[in-house]
């Protein structure tokens, strides 16, 4: 027994020694490994640890406002009260949503969206539960928050457009950053960031956007912020305000004046080129887009035949019609095809080959000179002028007055329209130009296509004789002493004849727009020209029988009503162009709103105000 114990004892001691050595080797290996990890590679891991620990949180800058020329905000920021969900703190989402629906209304679609987002996002990314809450609901939610674990109140920035649809086309709107616009810039990936998608918001996005700030925060493994480290934080630099040449009150006046019409208005400050009114009706509510428009709302906007999403004032093209006649008149005098006093007999129609060309007045105007032809808008006179000029000379003159040029005011959505010439027709159709086409071009019909802003530019250039270029940003307005607008290469005589004709339109008792009764601003005279853009071709049969009136036609086939005007006639300040799509006659439909808008503009002009009060004083002073 003892012997056996001794033997096995010796054996055990040997084996135990072997095992202990093996164990010690194991511990030695661990020590070596720890030495490598904690001493040799320590720097590397310390860096990784800091990376874990600290995170830079992006601070979204406050977006710059958009102001009108008087400093009134057209686009500003409001508090967006919202509730966020922290998925990692929620155990039973369904129960939470039931609780939540006692405070706020949740649609089934909204529930589905929240659940989907909570499932898909990483646990540490907050999910927006509800947005744009009113203050009382938000306050109520805050009161009940202790019972709703995982719900966090938050105040974000919401873009607000106080004038809604009236400014929509100019201002555009902001929205989430679309995927194709996302770059490496972290701000673009921030869920709270909104980027300008159209209009000024898009064009001036870099300026409005500002610069993101960064906040160094200590985060947990789940990305939850443990504390903010104020020291190395850079504050977000808010975006700059953008000041537009628009006048909010007059733009709104114009929008109200044309309510219900499918119309476009463009006004230009003739001296500077500033654009105080740029309107396209009907509009859309950009606030809907800023909040995220619903599919049904968007489809309704797309389906509307008045095209509310389309900026007609820059992109809509219409035959300039009779509004084009002053340009033809300038061309005719410049090229000496008439002296202006020459009378042309209007019988209501002329024949060219076997085709008949009609005047809008069936009985004809009798013999008319240039002044009469513009004032009464005689077609026959301008057929003759066009025939004498030829299309290429009309084309060249039209370009000088702004036709064929895309004025998009740097906000996009512009259209160059079309000014045809012989080369164009050959290139486009492969056929040669016919004289009939020259004739109808003389009265602004045919291939000619112009945008409302081109019509306003034409008016401003006719009125001033200078190459006025429109602009929308106040920063682009030249200072008074720097007004260095290039003069047009036309004689004062030629321009004067066109202006006299346009004054006659409004002020002569026989003018086409004399029923307007003028501006109504003392002795200040206005000049203008109406146009009725034909949309359909009037067949011979119909013409022989009776030309159908506009109100007998479906909306889509009615004529476009156009009116261009400027005032004061003696010292031009503002030019206005109004196009009412399928509105009917230019002088009856487009002229009254154009006159009213022009009057509003002049009432805001200090020089005109001084002139009016001076006239009053003179009147008051006369009896004494």
């Amino acid at each position, binding site marked *: 027994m003892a012997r*056996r*114990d001794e*033997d*096995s*004892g010796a*054996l*055990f*001691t040997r*084996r*135990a020694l072997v*095992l*202990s050595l093996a*164990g*010690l080797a*194991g*511990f030695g*290996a*661990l*020590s070596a*490994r*720890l*030495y490598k*990890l*904690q*001493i040799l*590679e*320590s720097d*590397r*891991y*310390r860096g*990784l*640890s*800091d990376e*874990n*620990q600290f995170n830079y949180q992006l601070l979204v800058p406050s977006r710059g406002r958009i102001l009108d020329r008087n400093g009134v905000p057209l686009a500003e920021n409001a508090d967006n009260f919202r509730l966020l969900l922290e998925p990692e703190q929620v155990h039973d989402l369904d129960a939470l949503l039931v609780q939540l629906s006692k405070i706020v209304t949740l649609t089934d679609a909204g529930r589905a969206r929240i659940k989907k987002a909570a499932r898909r996002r990483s646990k540490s990314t907050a999910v927006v539960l509800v947005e744009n809450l009113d203050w009382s609901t938000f306050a109520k939610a805050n009161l009940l928050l202790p019972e709703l674990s995982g719900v966090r109140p938050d105040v974000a920035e919401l873009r607000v457009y106080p004038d809604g649809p009236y400014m929509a086309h100019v201002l555009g709107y902001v929205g989430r950053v679309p995927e194709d616009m996302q770059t490496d810039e972290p701000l673009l990936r921030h869920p709270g960031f909104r980027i300008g998608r159209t209009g000024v918001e898009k064009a001036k996005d870099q300026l409005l956007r500002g610069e993101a700030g960064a906040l160094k925060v*200590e*985060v*947990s*493994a*789940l990305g939850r912020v*443990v504390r903010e480290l104020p020291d190395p934080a850079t504050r977000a630099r808010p975006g700059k305000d953008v000041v537009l040449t628009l006048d909010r009150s007059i733009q709104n006046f114009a929008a109200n004046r044309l309510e219900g019409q499918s119309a476009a208005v463009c006004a230009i400050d003739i001296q500077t080129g500033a654009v105080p009114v740029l309107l396209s009706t009907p509009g859309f509510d950009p606030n809907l887009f800023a909040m995220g428009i619903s599919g049904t709302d968007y489809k309704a906007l797309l389906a509307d035949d008045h095209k509310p999403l389309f900026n007609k004032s820059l992109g809509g093209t219409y035959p300039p019609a009779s509004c084009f006649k002053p340009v033809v008149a300038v061309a005719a005098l410049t090229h000496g095809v008439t002296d202006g006093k020459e009378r042309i007999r209007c019988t209501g129609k002329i024949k060219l080959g076997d085709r008949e060309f009609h005047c809008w007045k069936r009985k004809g105007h009798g013999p008319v000179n240039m002044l009469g032809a513009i004032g009464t808008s005689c077609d026959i006179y301008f057929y003759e002028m066009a025939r004498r000029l030829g299309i290429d000379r009309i084309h060249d003159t039209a370009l000088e007055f702004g036709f064929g040029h895309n004025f998009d005011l740097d906000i996009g959505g512009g259209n160059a329209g079309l000014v045809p010439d012989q080369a164009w027709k050959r290139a486009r159709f492969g056929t040669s130009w016919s004289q009939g086409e020259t004739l109808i071009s003389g009265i602004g019909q045919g291939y000619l296509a112009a945008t409302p802003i081109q019509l306003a530019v034409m008016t401003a250039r006719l009125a001033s004789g200078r190459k006025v270029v429109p602009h929308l940003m106040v920063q682009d307005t030249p200072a008074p002493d720097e007004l260095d607008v290039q003069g047009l290469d036309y004689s004062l005589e030629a321009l004067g004849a066109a202006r006299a004709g346009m004054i006659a339109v409004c002020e002569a008792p026989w003018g086409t727009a004399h029923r307007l009764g003028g501006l109504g601003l003392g002795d200040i005279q206005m000049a203008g020209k109406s146009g009725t853009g034909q949309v359909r071709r009037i067949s011979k049969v119909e013409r022989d029988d009776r030309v159908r009136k506009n109100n007998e036609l479906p909306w889509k086939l009615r004529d476009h009503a156009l009116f261009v005007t400027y005032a004061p006639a003696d010292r031009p300040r503002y030019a206005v162009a109004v196009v009412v799509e399928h509105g009917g006659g230019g002088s009856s439909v487009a002229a009254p709103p154009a006159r009213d808008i022009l009057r509003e503009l002049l009432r805001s002009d200090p020089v005109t105000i001084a002139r009016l009060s001076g006239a009053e004083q003179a009147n008051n002073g006369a009896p004494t």
Partner: protein
Amino acid sequence: MNEFRVARIERTIPFRVKIARINWMLVLLLCLAAMTGVAVLYSIADGSWTPRAAQHGVRFGVLLLVMLGLALIDIRWWMSLAYPTYMIAILLLVGVELVGVKVMGAQRWLQLGPVRLQPAEIMKLALVLALARYYHGLAIERATSIRHLAIPALMIAAPVLLILHQPDLGTAMLVGATGVAMVFLAGLSWRVIIIGGITGLIGGIAFLIFGLHDYQRARIETFLNPESDPLGAGYHILQSKIALGSGGLTGKGFLGGTQSHLNFLPEKQTDFVFTALGEEFGFIGTLSVLILYVLILMTGMMIAGRSRHTFGRLATAGVCVTFALYVLVNISMVIGLIPVVGVPLPLISYGGTVMLTVMIGFALVMNMHIYRDAELPTGRGFFL
């Protein structure tokens, strides 16, 4: 050592002598380890005694008293309970198969009334006791021969296979390795060891290729290349290495571990407690803990070598092997030497079951120390 050899064989030992023979060095070392655990758990809770640090300390205190109490029990009781304990552990493992509670994909727990226990944990000690008991009754020549390997092989294989089926690869390997180490210590001839080693290696490789569960395979794959998927399955290992590495020589200071405090560490109270320690106390801290463990093991092995009987030697050594494997596997895991297996760091990790196992194991060691010179029967019955 010779002076002990001549000591007389004792039949009974007076209580006074028993108390005198308590190895206070071992008690001190165990206390040090447990206090380290308390300190780390206190730090992980951001300097709070709740929820774990205080409980860890109290639990250790209670178990220390239990340990000392158990150590004073007559060694023959332990011996007679060896086979029955083993049988009960086997039955419980079978019970787990049939009515076990599934937690995270593995069926490891058994609900017995209010108590929920992990039979695999009991088996660790039961196997040690049973093997020691078996070899105690075996003549030395027989212990070395291959013919008498069948019974211990069966005794090891049965629980290993049952635990493997739960599935709990880590514990199965731990239990298996402990058994094999004991067979080795009992004196199996080198020839058999070499042949068996080669066979085992081939079998092991075959098992790794064909017999693994998906989650186990994933763990091994991530282990081989943790950086490939830093936020996925390799996350644990990588974050653990970052924590340890960023600790440097002296650590980030008590309560200063950013990785552990900011929740980058998984299971920081249990399996990854060593990482939290290494982050705050640096290489000095980790090396100190390693040395502490080595001291505990050396004390244990000296007790084993000092024992006059095979039962005492093998049982003590078995407990030491189990303890050593816990430490080696856990630390290898957190520093990325082996795949992540759920093995805690004894005495420092928070958790009642493991501390219970370890403290009962050391009760056994202490008992063997007190009864080192006792004469034990060599009967081959079920009890004695």
